[in-house]
C-alpha cells in the first residue's frame, strides 16, 4: 500500500503537550496546574440562553458568517472596548473558536513561500497552521528580560523580503505577557514601514491586570492591515462551546468567510445564541472572574518570591512563567520529576517553543485552595532540589 499520509502533515511535530498529557492521564492521584481553560462554569444566564434556543428548536444552520444579531453585538463590543468600528455584516466572521480564525486567516492571506513571523513562546497552533497554509514560519524568540514582550528591534531583525504576516499573541499564553500601547506603537511603525499584515490573537483580552487591554487595531493605520481574533472561551468561560470570531477589512474577511463556508459551514448555532447573551449581559461575570484570577496571580507571585523562584510579573491571561534554570535541569526534566515525585502536573515551557527552555507554564485557572496545595508541593520539591545541589 502507498503511504496514505501527506508529507506536509507527517512533517508536523505533534504538540509537545501531548507527551506530557499521556503520562499525567495514567496517574490517578496527580493534581494539575496544566490546563489552559477557565475553572469557572459558563455563567448560568448564558447557558440558559443556549438551552432556551434548543427548546425553541433553533437547531438549523446560521448564515455562514454567523447570526446577524451576534455579529452586531461583536461590533458593538469591539467599539466599546477598543474604540474601533467594524461593519457587522461585512467585517465580522464567527468561527469555531479563535483557533479556526487563526487557521482561516493564514490560509486566506498566505502564498507559498511567504514568511509568517511567530513570536514564541506562544500558543501551539500558529506554527502548524502557517505550514499547512503553505507559509514558511519564522520564529522570533522572545526574551525574559523584556518580560516576553515583542520589541521593534526583534521584529525588524526577523523581517525579510518574503515576510507577509506577523502573528501577535498578546496577552500571551504561556507567558502571561502583555503589550502596552507604547509597545504596540513601536511595532506598528515597523509593520507600516515594511507593508506587513498582522494577525492579532486577543483571546485573553479581558484578562489583564495592569491596565485595560490595548489592541493593535487602535494604533493609526493598523485597522486596515490587521485581523483581530477574539472569542468567548476565556472571557466568559465558554471553551466547550467552541466560539470565536475574526474582525478585519472586508477584503480579507470575505475570503475567510468563503473558506469557512466550505470547511465549516457555520459555527454552532446554540453557542451563537448563548454568545449574544454573553455580550449583552456578561460584563459583571467577566469582572468577577478577572478579580478572582488577579487574586490568584498575586498569591502565586508572592509564593514564588517567598520560595526565591525567579519569575517576572505577568499582567495577562491566567499563566505565570517561572524560570527554573537555577536547578540545572531542562524544563522537561523538571516537569517530569515534579510530576513523578510530587504528583503535580505543569507544562514545560518548551511545549510553546524552543525558547521556552528553562521555564514552566503554571496555570492559575484553579481555586485558591487547589493552588495552595500545589504550591506547597512545589516549595517542598524546590527545597529538595536545592539540597541535592548543595550535596553535589
Amino acid at each position: 500500500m502507498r503511504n496514505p499520509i501527506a508529507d506536509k502533515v507527517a512533517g508536523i511535530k505533534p504538540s509537545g503537550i501531548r507527551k506530557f498529557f499521556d503520562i499525567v492521564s495514567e496517574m490517578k492521584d496527580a493534581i494539575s496546574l496544566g490546563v489552559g481553560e477557565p475553572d469557572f462554569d459558563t455563567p448560568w444566564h448564558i447557558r440558559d440562553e443556549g438551552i432556551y434556543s434548543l427548546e425553541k428548536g433553533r437547531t438549523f444552520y446560521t448564515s455562514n458568517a454567523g447570526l446577524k444579531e451576534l455579529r452586531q453585538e461583536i461590533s458593538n463590543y469591539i467599539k466599546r472596548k477598543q474604540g474601533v468600528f467594524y461593519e457587522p455584516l461585512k467585517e465580522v466572521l464567527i468561527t469555531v473558536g479563535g483557533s479556526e480564525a487563526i487557521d482561516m486567516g493564514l490560509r486566506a492571506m498566505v502564498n507559498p513561500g511567504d514568511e509568517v513571523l511567530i513570536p514564541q513562546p506562544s500558543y501551539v497552533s500558529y506554527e502548524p497552521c502557517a505550514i499547512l497554509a503553505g507559509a514558511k514560519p519564522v520564529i522570533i524568540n522572545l526574551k525574559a528580560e523584556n518580560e516576553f514582550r515583542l520589541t521593534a528591534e526583534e521584529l525588524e531583525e526577523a523581517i525579510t523580503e518574503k515576510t507577509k504576516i506577523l502573528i501577535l499573541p498578546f496577552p500571551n499564553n504561556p507567558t502571561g505577557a502583555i503589550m502596552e500601547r507604547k509597545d504596540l506603537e513601536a511595532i506598528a511603525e515597523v509593520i507600516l514601514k515594511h507593508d506587513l499584515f498582522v494577525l492579532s490573537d486577543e483571546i485573553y483580552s479581558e484578562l489583564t491586570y495592569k491596565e485595560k487591554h490595548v489592541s493593535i487595531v487602535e494604533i493609526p493605520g493598523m485597522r486596515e492591515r490587521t485581523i483581530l481574533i477574539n472569542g468567548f472561551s476565556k472571557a466568559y468561560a465558554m471553551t466547550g462551546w467552541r466560539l470565536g470570531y475574526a474582525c478585519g477589512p472586508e477584503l480579507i474577511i470575505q475570503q475567510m468567510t468563503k473558506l469557512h463556508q466550505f470547511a465549516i459551514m457555520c459555527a454552532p448555532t446554540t453557542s451563537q445564541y448563548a454568545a449574544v447573551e454573553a455580550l449583552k449581559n456578561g460584563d459583571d461575570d467577566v469582572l468577577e472572574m478577572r478579580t478572582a484570577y488577579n487574586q490568584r496571580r498575586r498569591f502565586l507571585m508572592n509564593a514564588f518570591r517567598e520560595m526565591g523562584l525567579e519569575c517576572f510579573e505577568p499582567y495577562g491571561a491566567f499563566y505565570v512563567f517561572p524560570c527554573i534554570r537555577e536547578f540545572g535541569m531542562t524544563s522537561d526534566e523538571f516537569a517530569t520529576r515534579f510530576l513523578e515525585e510530587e504528583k503535580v502536573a505543569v507544562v514545560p515551557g518548551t511545549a510553546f517553543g524552543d525558547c521556552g527552555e528553562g521555564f514552566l507554564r503554571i496555570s492559575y485557572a484553579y481555586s485558591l485552595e487547589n493552588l495552595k496545595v500545589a504550591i506547597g508541593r512545589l516549595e517542598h520539591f524546590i527545597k529538595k532540589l536545592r539540597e541535592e545541589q548543595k550535596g553535589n
Partner: protein
Amino acid sequence: MREELLAIIEKNSRIDLKELAVILGVEEADVVSELAALEAEGVICGYHTLIDWEKTSNEKVSALIEVRVAPQRGQGFDNVAERIYRYPEVRSVYLMSGGYDLMVILEGKTLREVSNFVSDKLSTLDAVLSTATHFILKKYKDHGTVISQKKEDEREMITP
C-alpha cells in the same frame, strides 16, 4: 480594596490576614485597619458559619412566616419588627414589598415548638393582623452556596 475585601470574606471569613493582604496586593496592616473600620461602621455585622444541620444529629425545623401587620403612626413597622426579632428563635426578619409586610424566618427543635411560637407569641401581638407559616422542607442553596454538593474538576489534566 473595600468591596473586593468584603466579597472575599463574605465567602470565606476564616481566610488568614496575611493571605488576604497577599491576594489583595496590599499590606497586612492595611487589611487589619480596614477590617476594624468596617466593623466599627457596622458594615461587617458578624462572622458566621454555614452549617448543613441535616448532616448532624441535631434536628432543627425551620419555617418561613409571612406576617401582615398594622403599621403604627410615627413608627411604621419598626416597633413590631423589634418585638418580633427580640425572640431568640427568630433567625431573620425582613420588611417586604408585596402581599405581606414582614417575613420572619424561625428555627425551632420541633414542629410543635414552631407552631406554638406562631400561635402563642406571634399571632397574639396587637399589631399582627395575620400570619401564614411555611415549613422549610429542604435547603438546596443557602447564602450563595449549594448545600451538599461537591463539584469535581472534569477538565482534561493538561490542555494547551
